[in-house]
């Protein structure tokens, strides 16, 4: 079932931007030049590939920043650290981001590429754990709602990661919530 969800996430990562691109730019408006995000995240880690009996749940933080090149296109940096039963997982990602705004709402989609660093804490006579760093790519989407002029609430962010660590491939899903702070601005309100 979880593997089905991973497949769903992969499909969504490609279908949703196509949908967003097809929406006419009727509501373009002034947009922040930079966003900084920080919050809580949950990672459903594909631990079956390294010998766990099932996927494992990891909890932690998610931080990031995005810069707008145009009102809709920008670049996102995404960092996260998640921790759980004898293991931790970090993602260091960057990629293009597409944003669609309407009134106080913002939807975004991004593709990400970078590194995953996973560690399993198994105490051995000669070492305290096993760590592996490998390439990772994926994508996700999210929704922000403006709370104050400079602050938004990230109602949800969902990402899928395809990572290669420990000589195997993991398909992970991450969900995040948090707060977004805005700097600067780009563009202007367009009359309807």
């Amino acid at each position: 079932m979880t593997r089905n969800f991973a497949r769903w996430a992969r499909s969504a990562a490609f279908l949703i931007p196509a949908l967003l691109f097809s929406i006419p730019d009727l509501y373009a408006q002034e947009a922040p030049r930079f966003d900084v995000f920080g919050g809580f995240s949950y990672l459903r880690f594909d631990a079956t590939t390294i010998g766990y009996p099932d996927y494992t749940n990891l909890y932690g933080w998610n931080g990031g920043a995005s810069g707008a090149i145009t009102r809709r296109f920008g670049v996102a940096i995404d960092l996260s650290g998640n921790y759980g039963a004898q293991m931790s997982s970090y993602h260091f990602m960057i990629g293009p981001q597409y944003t669609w705004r309407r009134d106080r709402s913002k939807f975004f989609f991004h593709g990400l590429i970078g590194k995953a660093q996973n560690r399993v804490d198994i105490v051995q006579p000669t070492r305290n754990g096993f760590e592996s760093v490998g390439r990772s790519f994926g994508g996700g989407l999210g929704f922000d709602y403006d709370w104050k002029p400079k602050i938004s609430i990230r109602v949800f962010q969902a990402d899928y990661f395809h990572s290669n660590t420990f000589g195997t491939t993991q398909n992970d899903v991450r969900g995040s919530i948090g707060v977004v702070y805005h700097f600067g601005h780009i563009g202007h309100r367009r009359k309807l």
Partner: protein
Amino acid sequence: MLSKAIAAVIPLMLGALTACAPSTHTVYVTQPTNNNVAAYRINNHSGAFTTIVGSPYLSGNSPGPIVVDPAGKHAYVANRIDNTISLYRIDSLIGSLSEVMPRTTTASDAVAMVMNAAGNLLFVSNEVSSSVAVYSVNSGTGALSLVAGTPVSLPPNPVALAVTPSGKFLYVVNSNLGSVFAFSVASSGALQPVAGSPFASGAGAFALAIDPNDKFVYVANSTADTVSILSIASNGALIQVSGSPFATGTGPVSVALSTTGQFLYIANQSSNNISEYSIDSTTGFATEIIGSPLTAGTAPSLLVTDPDGTFIYVASQTSKTITPYTILSGTAATTTSGAGGLTTTAQSVTIDSAAGGIAVGK
């Protein structure tokens, strides 16, 4: 509108993420040439192997027999050249191994080990020093302590041993004599020879197994190419059942039973196949199953039954593989075998060196 969409998506996501855990168990394989222990997680349905993170784990010199305690908390590996036993703590979540130092010293060349069903006694057969030692097991730490009065000396070449599920009797196969030595086991682990011991088996007696009901002992006679079936008397004495010994393939070296004791499997190392038998639970008479013997790679040398009774694992010395075979259930005959027959359903896993021992965990 938006809130409705979110309300619809979130339950779907949560439902997907909280699906039931798949049914799995672990298998541990000692690799004498590489001085380590490989660990795998097995999917109970497909039989597929996944290497557990960190595997293989270091052991002593030339690890051979391996035993996992009934609780699945500890594993014991006999290092045949070091003359030691390594104790490993098994991680309850991952199934990984962490060795607990120091190692326990044994007599020379621990060639076989077995633990009683209660998990409080470990029996070790020392081939070169020709003895059997008994260790009591600390229920918390898994640490071993030699039981007073052991090791017990035996004639040269005690190569295999097995303890009855009740824990009352210990049987040790002597290859040179082609016989089985029987001992009654005290609650302390002290051994007392059974009257009439040793009991004749067959030339080149090499491996044995005991049925789950304490009724029969099965001995593979590697030179005679037979399996001896001996019934267990109330005092532990052994008596050949009618028709015993039964013919096997060439070079029978390992014996395994289904968890019910209804089916018997013999690895024939020289004829590269597995003999499969149905056992009469009253008389012990063995009837070869349709499709037996089953071709099984090259030089099958070790057979182990998984606790769920779903698979038999076969280690091949020449191809350095472990292959899971599914035990067919029901009564209807299939294209190759009837109930109790074996069939391959999953790919073999290749190991780094010929297996010295296999044990199944939780």
